[in-house]
């Protein structure tokens, strides 16, 4: 398998670090049980490290290798090579949870089964037309757990299917089914260009995590709990952060608009989240509020 040493193109120190890691971890990785020798393991590791650009220095490589889920990586590669015991181990360890994950993603039994079955086919590799089998497990790099990777692949497949299915759904059928459609595209026609420019500039200035937070909450309508789970913090932290980011953004956008020549009132109006259809109602409400306690109408009635 390892006809040429995988460490050949590497720097001597990097190569030594790789050999040292392989020697230390070979036994605990379970590679021997799956018919992977030390040279094979080194080949796998250098390939993974190379793909992720972590072969520049020995220190970088060591850190990267230590972060890998080595046992999972070895198992996945052994499965990809068609090792029988590896497949037994894989099925014993992941079959149940793979189906559970599929169900949690699809939320419907037949769809979940279809999703899981299709992934199995890909994991095992399609051998149509007599071509060499290529298992999807070959692409696993051990950066996260194998179980997490399986969930991600399932989720990807589901998203792909969902989007393609959604495109194929007849509009008439959906309407007949009573489905309500909302405006998915933002209505940019009523927004002030100056406000848009200010908003874009301020959004770009945000931290990536803050932008993700806004997109997940306001665009995708994820719950605070979902976002908190993804980011590994408590729900209340997300709530506070969201409040801080949005209020800060409002202030900065307003300030930027004023700096660009708008009057404070114009800036406030541009920041109003109103639809022209709501404008009449809001004006009416405002006018009513200006009449103290409806006194005028009472007096008029009494006189009348």
């Amino acid at each position, binding site marked *: 398998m390892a006809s040429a040493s995988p460490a050949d193109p590497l720097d001597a120190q990097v190569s030594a670090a790789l050999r040292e890691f392989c020697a230390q971890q070979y036994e605990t990785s379970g590679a021997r049980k799956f018919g992977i020798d030390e040279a094979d393991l080194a080949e796998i590791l250098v390939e993974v490290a190379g793909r992720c650009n972590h072969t520049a220095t020995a220190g970088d490589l060591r850190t990267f290798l230590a972060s890998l889920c080595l046992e999972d990586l070895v198992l996945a590669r052994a499965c990809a090579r068609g090792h029988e015991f590896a497949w037994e181990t894989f099925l014993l360890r992941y079959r149940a949870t793979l189906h559970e994950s599929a169900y949690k993603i699809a939320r419907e039994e037949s769809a979940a089964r279809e999703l899981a079955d299709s992934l199995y086919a890909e994991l095992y590799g399609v051998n149509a037309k007599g071509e060499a089998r290529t298992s999807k497990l070959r692409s696993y790099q051990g950066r996260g757990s194998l179980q997490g990777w399986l969930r991600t692949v399932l989720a990807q497949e589901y998203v792909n299917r969902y989007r393609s299915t959604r495109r194929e759904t007849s509009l008439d059928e959906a309407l007949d089914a009573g489905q309500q459609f909302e405006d998915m595209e933002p209505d940019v026609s009523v927004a002030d260009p100056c406000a848009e420019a200010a908003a874009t500039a301020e*959004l770009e200035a945000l931290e990536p995590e803050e932008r993700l937070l806004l997109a997940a909450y306001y665009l995708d309508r994820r719950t605070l709990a979902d976002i908190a789970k993804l980011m590994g913090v408590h729900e209340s932290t997300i709530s506070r952060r969201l409040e801080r980011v949005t209020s800060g953004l409002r202030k900065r956008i307003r300030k930027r608009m004023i700096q660009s020549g708008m009057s404070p009132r114009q800036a406030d109006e541009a920041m109003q989240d109103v639809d022209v259809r709501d404008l009449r109602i809001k004006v009416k409400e405002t006018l009513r509020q200006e009449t103290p306690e409806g006194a005028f109408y009472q007096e008029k009635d009494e006189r009348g």
Partner: protein
Amino acid sequence: MNQELPKPLRNALARQAGDEVHPSPDVLTSFVELKLPRKEQNLVTSHLAQCADCRDVVFLASGATEDVVPDNLELAAAAAPRRRWRFGLSWAVAALALLLVSGVLLWDRLSPRQTAPSIASNVRARESAPPAASPTPTSPETLATTARAEFSAPKTSPALATKSLSPKGVEKHPLAPVMAAPPAGESAQTLTVFEDKAELFAPAPVSKSAFAPNPADAVPHAVVPPVNPMMSLLGASATHRPWRVSADGHLEHLGAAADEWTRVLADETTTFHVVFVVGDNVWAGGSGGALFHSDDGGESWSRVAIATSSGGAEIGTIVSIRFSDPQHGTVATGGGSRWSTSDGGATWTSQ
């Protein structure tokens, strides 16, 4: 929700264009598992802020870590809407409160001459009849005795057992935590109620479906919904408080107030992967071949070494622990080694 964001800002947010190149499943997995280096995490976060597809993927993958279905339950049951344990707990508390109120009302109406009925009939009535069905007056003095007698009687339906034999008689969702480890050959279930400890031994539920795990996985064991299916397995303990392994590899035990998880064996450097409970015996395993055992429901712990034939100790990560009773069990490592014991862990044999 969308209304809270000014329109210009919402538009600008939606206009953000995603990159052409999407992160690989590996990278997204690392992101979900919070394992990415800071620099790479920022890149992925930045991409996610712009790419709705990848956001869907990470949220789906992240959401799929919840509520693991016990692998000895058939899928038909799994297809029912599942609740998080906290949700189930809140219902349990509500049911308990209702039960207490009913008890007080009943107490007022009780006559000393009235015959004490079986509490089990009340339980069955709660299961089969609407809550409004008026329970038969019961003498409190005889409740515990009758209940013990009733619950000690053999029953044939594991499903009913699971449902009715919740802690202190509180009804739980069928998929809620308390699953039992059946001793070999045990056919009857016993439950002691109105005491601190409650143990359930049900006949082995062996239902499977085409969608169910393989027979090896159908071995019944103590499981409750964990936080992370890979990292966690929870067990109904002898004290009826579940155990779990947190997503970051810590062994945790639900506090007596059932509102807080307490870290156990916190001084150990082990990254735990699995916990298994059988009766008062709690087994926890993790990295470096670490295997811990408590025979008193987690009060005291001892480290168990699995001696290999070469004279060393097993150092593979323990990923599976299964015990059919306190004496007989099997442990598997991530490297594929399997060890069995028939003397409660004193000696181990390679399989």
